[in-house]
């Protein structure tokens, strides 16, 4: 799914004392199948931005285009977009309402008006895609699962829509490292199947090895955007606390005179890089 914005500006409560410019002139274009990370400090407009992509918020000025079609106030068109582009909110478990995991995940499919056999098929596929066993989980209450399982069920509850794009707002918040790893595997899997994935995250480290694009926002403006390496290079000048930990260590090594690359964000790659520099140095 091609996602574009042109000079997108959003102002909350315009003309009141609470007026707040959440986004200012954001222009971007993400190709179908991209994996994009949106990062930035709290209050930088990340959540506001993604709520424009399926028309929950409409721009104060500027345009949002999905596959070239501009989002407006046409409710039927917005409904069609929402079936193709899924949005997972922060702490999505809070939207649970059904008695069983099956009903929770079936909700989106039931809203499409599908036959019950087709709904059941899609629920099964969706649960298996997030790595939960259908027979084991279908009858359980979504309220009695572990935090990590709840997060997975919440994501699975959008998958029956057979989406072309999935947007997740802080999907790793509150998960332990096991939950994070499982989430990363799921996102990698969705991406492999050609889905456009957009992840909002404070921590660039969590999903950076999957990303091919980063958008870094601050106070509603773009600080850096584009390929991962270029953005990290830009963030190394003044936004060091936001760098992935491994990248930050490499940057510090370079500052101390080591001849290593800073475009490294995984432990294994960092080790290789350091070992090869060390070897080259002593030999």
């Amino acid at each position, binding site marked *: 799914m091609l996602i574009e914005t042109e000079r997108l500006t959003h102002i909350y*409560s315009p003309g*009141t*004392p609470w007026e707040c410019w959440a986004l200012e002139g954001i222009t971007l274009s993400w190709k179908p199948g991209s994996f994009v990370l949106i990062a930035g400090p709290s209050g930088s407009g990340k959540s506001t931005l993604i*709520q424009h992509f*399926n028309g*929950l918020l409409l721009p104060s000025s500027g345009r949002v285009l999905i596959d070239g079609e501009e989002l407006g106030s046409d*409710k039927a068109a917005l*409904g069609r977009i*929402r*079936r193709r582009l*899924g*949005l*997972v*909110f922060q702490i*999505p478990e*809070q*939207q*649970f*309402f059904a008695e069983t995991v099956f009903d929770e995940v079936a*909700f*989106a499919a039931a*809203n*499409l008006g599908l036959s019950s056999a087709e709904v059941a098929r899609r629920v099964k596929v969706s649960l298996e895609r997030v790595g939960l066993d259908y027979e084991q989980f279908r009858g359980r209450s979504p*309220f009695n699962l572990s935090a990590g399982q709840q997060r997975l069920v919440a994501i699975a*509850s*959008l998958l029956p*829509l057979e989406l072309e794009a999935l947007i997740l707002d802080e999907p790793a918040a509150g998960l332990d490292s096991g939950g994070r790893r499982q989430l990363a595997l799921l996102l990698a899997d969705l991406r492999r199947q050609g889905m456009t994935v957009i992840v909002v995250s404070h921590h660039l480290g969590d999903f950076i090895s999957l990303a091919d694009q980063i958008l870094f926002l601050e106070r509603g403006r773009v600080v850096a955007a584009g390929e991962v390496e270029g953005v990290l290079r830009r963030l190394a000048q003044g936004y060091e606390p936001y760098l992935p930990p491994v990248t930050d260590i490499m940057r510090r090594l370079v500052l101390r005179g080591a001849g290593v690359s800073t475009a490294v964000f995984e432990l294994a790659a960092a080790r290789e890089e350091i070992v090869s520099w060390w070897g080259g140095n002593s030999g």
Partner: protein
Amino acid sequence: MVNRVAIGQYIPGNSFLHRLIPPVKIISLLVVLAALFMIKSFTGLGLFALMVLGLYGCSGLPLQRLVTGLRPVLYIILFTLVVYALTNKGGVVLLRVGRFTVDSLGISGGAFMASRLVLLIWTTLLLTFTTAPLSLAAGIEYLLKPLQRLRVPVAEIALIMTIALRFIPTLMEESRRIMWAQMARGVSFDTGGLRQKIRNLTPLIIPLFVGAFRRADELALAMEARGYQVGAERSSLKTARVGPADWLTLLSAAGLLAVVTISHI
């Protein structure tokens, strides 16, 4: 539906009305409203309206909010006007529809009552626009204190009021978030028949209740952790003192009531 700015919502500012202490504002409002109900002529209402608009002007409130503030009571005002016009007899017959007649006294009486209602709301909005809800609750608690002698649990009532006020925006924000989350799962809250619309409320109401109970639990725990005890005397961090402006306001309100009563305006 839940995104709209609430009626009479506090507008931050630093005018003299904003700075008056809440109990003084509440008493003055009651006195001024009493004066409003003593007014007997359109001239009096006109002068009163000028005073209210003057106060709006000097407290820096957006005048357009006066119009939006009337919207929820528009039907009550129209209803008053119609009932008065149909029931008050006298003067010249202006309109005759079957058995019903509308007299000139009916129209003028209806217009008078409607104007009085409008002024009642505008004057009250002066209070809610310039007082943060929590200060308002504190002011009411202060004024109810004497009832403690009669074993009315004033502090607890005030606490309930404060908590309710505190969580209204939170719950509104939460219901908007849940609504959006369910819309992302294909629910449409504004299409379909009445039956469909009611059925669509389930995925909104259940998470909202679950969240409210969770919040209540956390709040109770947090309050206990900070030593809250039912019935215990509590002090306030901020204590307001009655200043010259407060005395002046009280005196002016009393003066207004006296003038209106004596002059039969």
